[in-house]
């Protein structure tokens, strides 16, 4: 049986983890490799790095981080944040990333999705979508959620699918950081409208939230950050709960 994926996301700034596990006495909690190894050993099905380096000087450090992680961690690694070109993607994949996550650059330039899916294969192109409910529908926001693009989220995701995206990482801006559960209506509408897998993001606060995202939202992967980093929940705890609820997970 196919298993549900649980994916912890780590924010990396200038090569250092700035949002990651902070409940353990890790030798170096800022070290992305240490953090990725910890999660890999503790039930993560994949790892996601989000590069939040604002400066141009900070950018190349992620390549080094990915290279060292890939030498030590043998589960899939997705890297996102600031990806703008085929060259960026090529460098990350060469360094050992399995997938890249593209957001704003794909909105500004659709061809980047088409070209990268053609060149590297859909399996490594994850399209990240930040959606916020305005009146009765969800709009897509770009530039880290600061600009309303006016695009309808569902239509945009269908377009991304037709451009060759392999997966959609869908973040509800309304729910992100609230810890009161995922936006189930958004997830449900997205999974019903798409043929490619959807990864739910934004709102995880308890194990039942994961269950709802899977059963009511229809997703087969869930991404979460703070709830794991602060040990409010462990991945194993979530998986044990899901297993009891009859959902297939990997141990």
């Amino acid at each position, binding site marked *: 049986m196919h298993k549900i994926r649980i994916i912890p996301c780590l924010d990396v700034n200038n090569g250092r983890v700035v949002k990651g596990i902070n409940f353990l006495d890790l030798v170096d909690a800022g070290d992305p490799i240490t953090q990725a190894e910890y999660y890999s050993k503790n039930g993560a099905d994949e790892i996601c790095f989000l590069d939040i380096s604002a400066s141009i000087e900070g950018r190349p450090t992620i390549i080094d981080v990915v290279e060292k992680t890939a*030498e030590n961690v043998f589960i899939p690694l997705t890297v996102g944040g600031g990806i703008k070109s085929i060259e960026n993607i090529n460098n990350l994949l060469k360094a050992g990333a399995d997938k890249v996550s593209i957001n704003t650059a794909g909105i500004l330039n659709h061809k980047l999705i088409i070209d990268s899916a053609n060149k590297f294969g859909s399996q490594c192109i994850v399209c990240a979508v930040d959606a916020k409910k305005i009146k009765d529908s969800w709009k897509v926001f770009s530039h880290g959620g600061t600009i309303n693009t006016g695009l309808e989220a569902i239509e945009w995701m269908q377009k991304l699918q037709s451009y060759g995206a392999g997966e959609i990482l869908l973040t509800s801006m309304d729910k992100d950081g609230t810890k009161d559960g995922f936006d189930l209506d958004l997830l449900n509408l997205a999974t019903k409208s798409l043929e*490619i897998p959807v990864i739910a993001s934004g709102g995880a606060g308890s194990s039942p939230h994961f269950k709802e995202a899977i059963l009511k939202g229809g997703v087969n992967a869930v991404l979460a950050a703070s709830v794991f980093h602060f040990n409010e929940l462990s991945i194993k705890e979530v998986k044990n709960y899901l297993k009891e609820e009859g959902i297939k997970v990997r141990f």
Partner: protein
Amino acid sequence: MKDIIVLDYGLGNIKSVYQAIKKTAFENKISAKVKISNNVSDLDSSSHIVLPGQGAFKSCMDGLKSIPGIIDTLKQNVLVQKKPFFGICVGMQLLAKQSYENGKHEGLGWIDGEILKLPEKKLKLPHIGWNEVILTNPKNIFENFINNDYYFVHSYYFNCKDKNNEIAKTNYVIDFSSIVGKENIYGVQFHPEKSSDQGQAIISKFLSL
């Protein structure tokens, strides 16, 4: 000393495969030299050959063909000299006679079968994530290492014509061959290099051949 070549033909996340083999050899105390190469003389002097692969079947096959003499050298090493061969993902699919991914394309044809698309609509495609690999042929080198979860990413599958060549199967809407094998030739649809400890157990078994 094992001399392992990871064949580089310009496609796929070759480095992950290379790193996983190196780490597996180290942790299992297997004395091995691992090299990424597309050089025919490296293939000739190798003891084990690994063929990774990602993306479309045709671009992988074209990538192989674009290296002068590589297919003949592979045939000589694998079919005549019977060196252990391990195909991963599309590298496994290339073993089939043909693929129907975006048209009809010829493969290496070393294991009788064809590459078909997984059924659409019922479940999401690509099939991405961890899934169970179930042993169907009990007499093989991977005997003790399967019935575990491995990481898959694919939309097409190996339809084995001769079930004697199927070592294990996986279910995603339908049952498909997730490990195929014939004499010294092995292929896995999943990514052992991304399948944590279980993946390394399979790599270790291949390296011990």
